[in-house]
C-alpha cells in the first residue's frame, strides 16, 4: 500500500543517508543540468552554423554571434532597454489590473450560483471572441496611446483568471465543506477558511496562463500600432531589413517570457507549499 510506504519513509531517519551523498547530489545536479541544456545547446549551435555553411540565407537568418553582437550594440545605445521598458510596463500593468479585478469577481461568481447563471453566457461569448479582433475597438474608444494596449492586455488576461477562479471555488472537495459546516462555521468563515485556501492552487493556474497571454497579445498589439515596445521593434526591424535587430527583439521576448513564468512559478510554490512537491518539469 502506498500509505504504508509513506509512513515508513517518514519514520526512517533520512539524515545520515543525506550527509553521505552531498557530493553525489552535486554530481547528480550537474549531470541533470547538462542533460537539460543539451537540446538548447544543439539548437544554438545549429543557428550559428547553418547560415555560415550556406544552409540558409544569412541575410534572413544571421548567425547567432552576429545577432548577439547587435544585441550588445542595442543595449549600449539604450534602445533595447527602452523597448523592453515600454513592453514590460504595459503587460505588467495590464496583468496586475486583471488580477486585481478578476480574482474577486471570479470568487463572487463561483460562490453565488445565481450570479453565475446570469453572467456565464456573457463570459462564454466574450471568451470566444479573439482578443486581437477587439484592438480596433479599443483604439477607437481609448485612442492610440497606452490605454488601448493596456486594456487589451487586461481583457485577454481576464478570462484565464476568471474561469480558473470560478472553477477553483466551485470544485472545493464537498467533504471539506461538510466537515467545516459540522462545526457551525458561518458562511463567511467557511469561505475564508475553507473555500478560499482550497481554491488557491486553481486560481494560480489561471494567473500563470494570464501571465503568458499578457505578453502574447501585447506583442501583437505593438506590431499593429505602437511607437515603442518589443513588438514594434521586431516588426519595424523587419520592414527596414535590419534583420539582426529583429532577432534581438525576439530573443529579448524569450528571456522576458521565461523570467516572467519562473517568477510566477516561484510565487505559486510559496502559496501552495502544502501540496506534494511536483516533479521538476520546468
Amino acid at each position: 500500500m502506498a500509505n504504508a510506504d509513506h509512513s515508513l519513509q517518514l519514520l526512517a531517519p533520512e539524515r545520515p543517508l543525506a550527509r553521505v551523498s552531498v557530493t553525489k547530489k552535486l554530481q547528480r545536479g550537474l549531470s541533470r543540468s547538462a542533460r537539460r541544456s543539451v537540446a538548447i545547446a544543439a539548437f544554438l549551435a545549429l543557428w550559428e552554423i547553418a547560415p555560415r555553411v550556406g544552409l540558409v540565407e544569412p541575410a534572413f537568418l544571421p548567425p547567432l554571434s552576429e545577432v548577439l553582437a547587435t544585441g550588445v550594440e542595442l543595449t549600449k545605445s539604450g534602445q533595447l532597454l527602452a523597448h523592453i521598458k515600454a513592453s514590460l510596463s504595459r503587460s505588467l500593468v495590464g496583468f496586475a489590473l486583471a488580477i486585481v479585478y478578476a480574482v474577486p469577481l471570479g470568487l463572487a461568481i463561483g460562490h453565488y450560483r445565481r450570479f453565475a447563471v446570469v453572467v456565464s453566457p456573457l463570459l462564454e461569448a466574450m471568451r470566444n471572441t479573439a482578443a486581437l479582433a477587439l484592438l480596433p475597438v479599443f483604439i477607437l474608444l481609448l485612442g492610440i496611446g497606452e490605454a488601448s494596449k493596456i486594456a487589451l492586455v487586461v481583457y485577454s488576461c481576464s478570462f484565464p483568471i476568471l474561469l480558473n477562479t470560478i472553477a477553483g471555488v466551485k470544485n472545493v472537495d464537498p467533504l471539506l465543506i461538510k466537515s467545516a459546516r459540522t462545526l457551525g462555521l458561518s458562511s463567511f468563515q467557511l469561505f475564508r477558511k475553507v473555500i478560499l485556501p482550497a481554491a488557491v492552487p486553481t486560481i494560480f493556474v489561471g494567473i500563470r496562463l494570464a501571465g503568458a497571454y499578457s505578453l502574447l497579445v501585447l506583442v501583437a498589439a505593438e506590431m499593429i500600432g505602437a511607437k515603442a515596445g518589443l513588438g514594434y521593434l521586431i516588426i519595424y526591424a523587419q520592414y527596414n531589413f535590419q534583420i539582426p535587430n529583429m532577432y534581438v527583439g525576439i530573443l529579448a521576448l524569450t528571456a522576458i517570457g521565461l523570467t516572467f513564468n519562473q517568477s510566477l512559478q516561484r510565487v505559486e510554490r510559496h502559496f501552495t507549499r502544502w501540496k506534494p512537491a511536483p516533479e521538476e518539469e520546468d
Partner: protein
Amino acid sequence: MSAQSKIEFVAVSKTFPARSGRPGDAFSALQNVSLQVAAGEFMVLVGPSGCGKSTLLDLLGGLAQPTSGQILLDGEPVTGPGLNRGIVFQQYALFPWRTALENVEFGLEAKGVAKAERREIARSHLDLVGLSGFEGHFPHELSGGMKQRVAIARSLAYNPEVLLMDEPFAALDAQTRETLQDELRSIWEKSRTTILFITHGIDEAICLGQRIAVMTFRPGRIKRIVEVPAELRAATDDVRSQPEFGRLRHEIWQLLQDEVQEAARDERRNKLGTARPARGSSLREVALRG
C-alpha cells in the same frame, strides 16, 4: 428514559425526493428510527451499505432535517450543526493546506479560543493520539492511519459532548485499524465522551461498542439492539479469540445476512435498470405503478 438519554432519535424518518421528480419514486432512507444513547455510552451502528447510516449521522450532525420525527440532544431538538458534536469521517477530511497542528486547531478557532491556548490544546491532543513530533507535517506527508489520528484529535480538541464516527477506520489496513480501535477505546475510557460509531464491520462493532444497533437495508430501520457482555469488554488480550466473541459475531452476522442479501439483490436490480418497488412502500403504490 428520555430524561437521562444523551442522544435520542424519536420515530425519525427521512425521505429524499426522487431524481425523476415523481412523488411515487421518492426514496426512503430512514423509516421510523428510534434509538437512545446514554451519556458516556459507546454505541455502534452496523448495517449493510445503503442502510441510511450516514443519513442518520447527517441528521444528528445538524446538516439535514428529518422528514418526520425528532432528534434530541440532552432533550433539546437538534436544529443545526454545532460544536457540541464532533464528526470523524472515513476520508479524514483534513484541510490539506494546514499542518497537523493547524488542523487540530481548526475547531478551536471556530470556538473562538485564543491563539496560545489553542496551540497548547492542539499539541496535547496530537500527543494523545501519539503524533507528537508531527505537528508541522502537512496531511499529504502522513499515512492514512496518521491522518485519521489527526482527524480524531481535531474532533476531540474542542471537547464535544458527542463524538460521531462515520466508518472512520474503513479505509485503513487491518493492522492500523486494530491499533486505532484499541486507542479509541482507551481514549473513550479516559474521556467518557458519548460515542456513536458507524461501521459495517461486525468485529469492529463488537470490539468497540457497549451496545450494537443492527440496521436493516433500505429503508433503514433499527432491527435489533445487541448488548455486548461486560466480561467480554473486560477481556484485555485478544478479545477476538474469546468464545463469547464468536457467539456474538454469529448472532449479528445472522441478523445482517438477510439485509446484505437484500442489498445485493437491489444492486443487481439497479444495474439492470428496472424500477424497484421500495420495501415497505404500500401495495397500492406498487399497484399504481404496476
